């Protein structure tokens, strides 16, 4: 166990030390010493003023992401049930998925102003597509035999969706949710870049313009930490929620 932990951690430690010593004597404005950066992370983000900005950003992220998740799964399920609507709209859904969401910031500013609403709407709008498309796809892939059995047994259409199709599609949906989280984090930063007065995106943009590169590097580290924590939380939740699924599949795999 300790050996396993050591294996997973040693490379991190080595890279960290390399960065530390290599940048230790640096006088460059753009690549400050790691010690300075870490100190800034502590001073600004853990104990300082930037923590409030981080809180604002995370608030936007949470609200936007939850909306995206609910809408994505809900609309995905709805579209799956209505075959003609699904066929008719699928190319446009795909188009909106492929469109890089940051280009829509000016449009969002036009329609929703420059405050909380704009950011949440933008995050939700960008993050909904992976979940939606994965939900659609996962539900389309459900075993037809199971569906037919459910229908024969008299399960209602809504029941079929909730108790047969959604659980069967769960791994795919979870993959989509994970992707949505990544997109949401990106949009959280981008939506605060322009015309904003708080948030981590504003912090980075401001730091860039004030040539505060120490601050920029510290924000970069904070973002990486956020991403990792979000990912870990996600994996933990996924394992809890889907343990029955993985267990079943593992059994299946072995029998094969």
């Amino acid at each position, binding site marked *: 166990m300790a050996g*396993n932990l050591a*294996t*997973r951690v*040693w*490379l991190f430690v080595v*890279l960290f030390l390399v960065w530390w010593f290599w940048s230790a004597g640096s006088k460059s404005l*753009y690549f400050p010493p790691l010690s300075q950066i870490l100190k800034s992370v502590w001073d600004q983000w853990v104990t300082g003023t930037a923590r409030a900005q981080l809180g604002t950003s995370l608030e936007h992220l949470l609200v936007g992401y939850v909306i995206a998740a609910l809408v994505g799964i809900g609309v995905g399920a709805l579209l799956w049930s209505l075959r*003609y609507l699904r*066929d*008719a*709209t699928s*190319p446009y859904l*795909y*188009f909106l*998925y*492929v*469109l*890089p969401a*940051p*280009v*829509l910031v*000016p*449009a969002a500013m*036009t*329609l929703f102003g420059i405050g909380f609403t704009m950011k949440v709407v933008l995050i939700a709008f960008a993050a909904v597509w*992976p979940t939606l*498309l*994965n939900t*659609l*796809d*996962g539900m*389309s*892939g*459900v*075993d*037809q035999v199971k569906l*037919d059995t459910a229908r024969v047994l008299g399960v209602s259409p809504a029941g079929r969706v909730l108790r047969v199709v959604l659980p069967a599609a769960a*791994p*795919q949906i979870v*993959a*989509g949710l*994970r*992707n949505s989280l*990544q997109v949401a984090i*990106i949009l959280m930063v*981008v939506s605060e*870049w322009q015309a904003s007065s708080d948030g981590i995106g504003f912090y*980075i943009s401001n730091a*860039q313009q004030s040539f505060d590169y120490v601050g920029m590097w510290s924000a*970069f580290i904070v*973002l*990486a930490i956020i*991403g*990792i924590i979000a*990912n870990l939380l996600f994996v933990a939740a*996924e394992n809890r929620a889907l343990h029955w699924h*993985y267990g079943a*599949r*593992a059994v299946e*795999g072995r029998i094969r």
Partner: protein
Amino acid sequence: MRNFLTYGLRLAVLAAALGLWQGLSAAGVIRADEFPSMSQTATALWDLLTQSAFWSAVGETLEGWALGLVIGVAVALLIGTLIGLNGFAYRSAIGVIEFFKAIPVIAILPIGLVLWGATLTTKYALVAFAVFWPLVIQVCYGVRSLDPVVRDTTTVLQVKGLRKFFTVILPSAAPFIATGLRVAVAVALVVDIVCELFGAGSGIGERILLAENAGPTQYPQMYAYIVAAGLLGIFLAGAFTVAERYVLHWHESQRAAKDESQIRGYPERRRLTSVAQLSPGGTTPRTPRCRPARA
């Protein structure tokens, strides 16, 4: 018959959406100095298609996309294979890879600007960076996902080394790699355009930025470029799907996908053509979470 109905419905949906846009603009719900009308944007898009400035912007975007993709993919294939084949290397590196994967590329854009200026280099360096991390994980998964039966057969038949790699491991990893590549193609374009949008190079994103800064008179052009960006993404993803189907036609999952359309009710195999595989976060394959082949 079904096809005609589908296409008809699709056109109807498009017409309805565009009509709604035009209606809102005409009614003044959408202010003319903040958002162009549908007709203005459509005209602008049509005009752009005949201008060389537009196509050179597309070319510049594609340049960054292609270079970044090639570098990212090549390095990911190499390193992913090396890491995947060795259990110790995999366990050591996976944490670091996940760490870097979690960083939004936008956060390192200012650093890239300082290193390379507002040039093509910044663009493709950042694209390669963004593409590398999720892809290397996919390659790892693929390399490690060897079916135990196949693995045992290779051992029994004493197939070793490079021959084993090329004839057994790589083909078995192919669907994972293909999924990863599909994701990489989409991510590369998005990152490329976003970099341009933030001043890192020239191309479609840059045109959008310039049009935005030039004011309401240029908004139709700006939204025309935005639509063009989306269309470019569709085109590239579509081209990739075609290429993938051609290259991997031999793989059983592609074959199963074809069979399945003929035999209804047959247990579904994972379909590589599904659009939902586009998940840079890493598709959870419908096989048990990859553990090392030996305990």
